[in-house]
């Protein structure tokens, strides 16, 4: 649960930082809006891919030079 919240908060902060740079107007522009959606979509896809690769690499490492018992 805590991991999910950290992930969620990171997502909000990162997409805000990357997409919202204009404070001359109050409203979120259409361009900013689509940036945020694309950012969130890409972030989720990247997390998924990184998670798979991470598990593979971790499993490989445990088989290779890792501890046998635990």
């Amino acid at each position, binding site marked *: *649960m805590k991991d999910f919240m950290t992930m*969620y*908060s990171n997502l*909000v*902060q990162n*997409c805000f930082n990357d*997409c*919202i740079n204009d404070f001359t107007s109050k409203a979120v522009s259409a361009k900013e*809006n689509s940036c945020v959606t694309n950012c969130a979509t890409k972030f*989720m896809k990247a997390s998924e891919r990184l998670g798979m690769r991470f598990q593979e690499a971790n499993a490989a490492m445990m088989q290779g030079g890792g501890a046998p018992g635990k």
Partner: protein
Amino acid sequence: MSFLGFGSRPQPTSAQKIAAAEQELEMVTDMFNRLTESCRKKCLPTDYREGELNKGESVCLDRCVGKFFEVNMKISEFMQSQQQNAMAGGGSGRIGGFGA
């Protein structure tokens, strides 16, 4: 979990309510800290020639809070739609057994 706007849920017990409230407070505090960090970087120049907030900085901070909330809302909706796609038919539409 009003900050995330995840909608209503079934009746919780008192202990669950307290735990959910604590978690919400922690979450809101974390969000406020992140918002502060982001808006400081976006709105305050780092040469600090004066201690006062000038007009431009003040307006920028105000808009920054508004836009941060809008982004948060948008991403909350996005996550809920993702969630609904993932567990279509199975669940109650809330994210990961959230809150109470």
